[in-house]
Every structure is written in C-alpha cells, then in structure tokens.
C-alpha cells in the first residue's frame, strides 16, 4: 500500500513535468499536434495527387506499352479533341448535377421534418435511420438496385399494370442508384443547417404577416442554403468519381471513372488515365470556388 502510493506520487510528478514542458513551449505543442496530420496530408494525399498530375504529362509507347518520361500535352489534346471523351465528360458533369438536384429535392422535406417538426425522440431515430444505409456495403446497395431495375424486378412489376416497363440499365438507373447512395450526405448538412435556425425566426416571419409559402421561400430556404452547398459538394464529387455503380446498373453507359479505370487496367495507359482523372479534380476545384463565392462555406 505504502509502496503503491509512492509509485503514484512518482507517476504524478513525472506526468506533471512532461506536461509543463509542453505547456511552456507553445511552439512544441503546436508542432506535436500538427506533425502527424501534416505528414499525412502533405506526403500521402497531395504527394499522390502531384504524382498523378506529373504522370498525365508523360506518354506511353504504343508499341512496347512502356511509359516514356517525355513532357507532352498529347494526353490532354486527345481528351479535348476526341468526340467520345468530350461526350463522356459532359455526361459525367450532367449526371453529377442531376444527382445533386434529385438529392436536394428529396433531402429538404426530410431534413425540415427532422429539424423542426419531429419530437426529440423521433429526431434521434430519424438521424439513425438516415445514417443506417451507410452501414451497408456500397456493392450490396448497388446490386440491390440492379435487382430493382431488372427485367423481372419490382419496378417492372409495379409499372406493368400501367402499361409501362422498367427503364432497364442505363442513365435513369444510374441516376436513381447514385441519388440513393449519396442521399444521407445531403440530408445531414441540410438538417444541421436547419436545426441551428431558432424557431423564433419562423414565428417572426408569421408575426410579420407571412404565410407558410412565403416563410419557406424567404426564410427557411435561405437559411438552409449553406447546408445545400455543403451537401452538394459531397453528392457532386462522389458522382464525378463513381465508376462502380454505373458498371452495375448503367448498362453500356460510360463515365469519366470508367475511362480512367479501363485505361489503367485493360489498356494499361497510365498517363492517359491520369489525364482523364484530372478532369474531375479541375471541375471540383471550380465547383468549390463557386461555392466559396456564395459565402455559404463560411457559415458551415
């Protein structure tokens, strides 16, 4: 017992000493805190991206298949001049925008109900319900939608009495599947934005004579806007980079991700794959800059 206490004292003193050195040297403290994340961000993340960009400026020997480390813009020239790549780029951006719009439309009423109407208990349950699909594997969910859209699947079964058929595998199925996959990433930021709005703002709007439609348009939507911007960054960028869902439910539809994947794998043209991969990066940088201009990112 006695010994134990002495051990404790020693530990206390030792701990106090180390902590006080860190306390007295703010530089050291900041350094210790920031080194691991900076290493990760600098070396692993930006380093890999930098390597990718450099690779995109090299070329591949058509005959041997080896990479030739000669600086050239040939890959980008192909990307912008060949019709099919232009079409795929436009299609990918369009799909990203469409998925974002569908998610925004679906997320708003759900988020509004969660943030302002549901009881605290229902609110907690709904947050779990929204997060739950994220626990399941991406592949499982994509294949689930493949089943839905199949020729003898539930969608066909529901539509047949109305003389309609399943749209089958293609852009529609891809849009639905991706919108389904990324919906939680839209609901949560919109919910968070609305949750922070004090109820008194809605009361003030009603007090000043506004009906629900006016309040929705002039108060609720503007207040939810930063949430939409944050959510759209997720839905837009995740769609820009997707190549698996489109493989599973897209039929022959190709997106930028497929071009990257095919060039990397089958064609083994790493420099061209790298050049294609820079397109979503540039588009996203443009998107982020536009989002920044709205001022919505500051209020996140």
């Amino acid at each position, binding site marked *: 017992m006695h010994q134990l206490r002495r051990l404790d004292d020693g530990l206390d003193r030792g701990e106090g000493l180390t902590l006080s050195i860190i306390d007295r040297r703010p530089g050291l403290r900041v350094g210790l805190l920031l080194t691991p994340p900076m290493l990760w961000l600098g070396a692993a993340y930006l380093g890999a991206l930098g390597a990718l960009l450099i690779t995109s400026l090299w070329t591949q020997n058509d005959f041997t298949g080896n990479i030739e480390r000669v600086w050239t813009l040939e890959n980008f020239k192909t990307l912008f001049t060949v019709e099919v790549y232009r079409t795929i780029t436009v299609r990918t951006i369009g799909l990203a925008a469409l998925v974002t719009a569908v998610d925004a439309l679906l997320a708003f009423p759900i988020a509004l109900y969660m943030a302002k109407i549901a009881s605290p208990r229902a609110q907690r349950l709904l947050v779990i319900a929204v997060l739950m699909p994220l626990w399941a594997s991406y592949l499982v969910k994509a294949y689930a939608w493949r089943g839905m859209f199949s020729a003898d699947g539930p969608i066909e079964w529901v539509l047949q009495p109305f003389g309609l058929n399943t749209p089958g595998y293609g852009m529609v199925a891809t849009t639905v599947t991706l919108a389904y996959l990324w919906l939680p990433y839209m609901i949560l930021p919109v919910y968070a934005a609305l949750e922070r709005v004090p109820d008194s703002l809605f009361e*003030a709007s009603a*007090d000043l004579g506004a009906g629900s439609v006016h309040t929705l348009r002039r108060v609720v939507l*503007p207040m939810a806007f930063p949430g939409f911007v944050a959510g759209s960054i997720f839905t837009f960028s995740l769609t820009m980079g997707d190549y698996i869902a489109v493989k599973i439910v897209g039929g022959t539809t190709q997106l930028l991700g497929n071009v990257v994947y095919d060039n990397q794998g089958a064609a083994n043209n790493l420099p061209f794959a790298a050049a294609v991969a820079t397109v979503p990066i540039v588009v996203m940088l443009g998107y982020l800059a536009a989002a920044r201009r709205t001022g919505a990112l500051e209020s996140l």
Partner: protein
Amino acid sequence: MTATAISLRGLSKHFGQVRAVDELDLDIADGEFFSMLGPSGSGKTTVLRLIAGFEEPTAGTILLGEDDVTRRPPFSRDVNTVFQDYAIFPHMSVVENVEYGLRVKKVGKADRRRRAEEALETVRLASYGARRPHQLSGGQRQRVALARALVNRPKVLLLDEPLGALDLKLRREMQIELKEIQRDVGITFVFVTHDQEEALTMSDRVAVFNEGRIEQLATPVELYEQPASAFVAGFVGTSNLFRGEDARRLVGEDGTFAVRPEKVRLATSAPADTTGLCVAHGVVREVVYLGATTSSVVELDDGPTVTVSHPNTDTSIDAAAERRDQRVVVTWRRDHLVSLGSPTQATSPEEETA
C-alpha cells in the same frame, strides 16, 4: 375610458398538467403602455404568445378591438412582436429586415423603402440600413427588431422581455426611449418583463402575474404603495412583512402587514411624540452600502428583523457603519403600513382602510 385594444375572456392555457394561464380576464386600453410583470414561469410570456397567436388557448377568447382572433393564425392578426432574442433574419440586411412585413403585404418598392427608412429613423438607426445583422451590437439589434415591428403600424405591439439581454446603462436608456416612442406612435404596447423597476418606470398599468393568474392590476404608484398581497409586496420592491404574532405585537392588530424599508426610520432614542407611530426596539445586525442608499438590518427585541433604508446624503457612511451592533429604535407611521388582509381571509378593500 378609451376603447379597448385587447380583451381576454376566461383565457386558459394548459401544458399537460401545468396550468400556465388560468382563466384570465383582462382588458387593455387603446394607446396604453401595459406591462405584465412576474417571475419566470408565472405565465406572462404565455399570455403574450397567446395574443400573438403562437399558441392556441385551451379555453377562452381573445378579442383585438372588436375582432375575435382566438383561432386565427399569427399572420392574420394585427399585432407585431419584438422577440426576446430579437429574431432578426441573419441573411438579410437591416433595411430588408425592416421591410419584411411590408414586402409580405405587397407594398410597392419605393413606398416600403421610404417607410423602412422612417422606422429606422424613429429608432435612431437612420444610417444603418445597409448593415448586416451580425455587424450590430445587442442594443442596435434590439432597435432593428423594434423598427421591423413598428413599420407595420400594428394595433398592438407585443414586447417579450426585449431589454433582458442589454447591460444596465443601455437598459435604462432604452426604457426611456421606448416610452417616448410609444407616446409618439400612439400604439398600444404590451410589455412582458420580470424586472419590477422596468415595469414601474414605463407602464401606465402593470399586471403582476403569479402561477398563471393576475395577483394585482394597478398603476405603478398603486402597485408600490398599496400592494394587494404578500406576493406583490415582496416582488415589487422589498417589504418588511409582519404576520401573526409579530403583527399583533408590533401593529397591535391581527393580519398581515407590510411596510417599505425607506418608510422606516432609525434613531438612537424613541421620539417624544409617538402619536400615529409604531415604535420598536432592536439591535443593528448588518449595514449594507448600496451607493445611493444604505440598508440596515435591525433585529427587533420582539422577534422579526426589519430592513431600514436611508439615502446617503452624507459622503461617508461611517455614522451608519458605527451603528452596527448598537441598540436602536425603529419607527414608522401607521398610515405607511399596508394591510394585506388576515391570513384566513381574502384581501378586501375594507380591511385596507381599517
């Protein structure tokens, strides 16, 4: 008597088992500055929210002028509210905030801009129209909220503890300013506060709330000088209360009596002429310096303690401080005693004149 702006008849609001407002009858006159005073949870804010339409009453009716608005939503009632947290729209500029109500009513752009500027001038924020709410101080935001409500020229303006978040000096300034604005625009103000000084300073009449009911409805002077119950006597200012045995010994009558600390005098010996006076002996236990006044707590030989308040007309309180632990005589005029009725009976006016 002028026309009534608001009539509440048998108004009740229950939240589950809690009776927040309990069968309230109240008439507020046109152009009146009316305050609802009470501790938190006394129901005063609920009454305000019922008038605004944010809550639906469990029972009773609400008349605005001649109109029964009991079941009408907030946006079709001719009242406007200044919220406790101001509820300024953060995504709009100051002038857009003020214009909001006019915009809803489809007032033309030039007209509504002019009226908004006028309203901002009324609250002395003429050059602040282009600012964003987050660039304003608490006091300025409060004025924006006031302008945003006043610009609609409502029949009644409801104010929910609007000065609560301001510091003391600013609060005093705003009290005077609010009263001036109310006199200028001539709109009925219904003001909710838990600050008795605020209520006394500004109001034409004050309703003191306790547990969902009105304890007393009176002018500030009546409220202070003639409190109707022990609750009012204790909540509005401070009072020395004598009950039961104490009342019998000190006043010579049965019942509950109150006397204000500033009406009690402190002396070293009993005055020669004691007609119309109550006299009691005791020891000074505590002397508290309060700036403008000094309070002495005297423990009477007859049991209870009495607080005596006197103005600090001298620069030093040494004389008062020296009295600590000294034997003194406290006196007060019998006509300064307020009878709060015998504890077994309800307060009745006859007893007060007795």
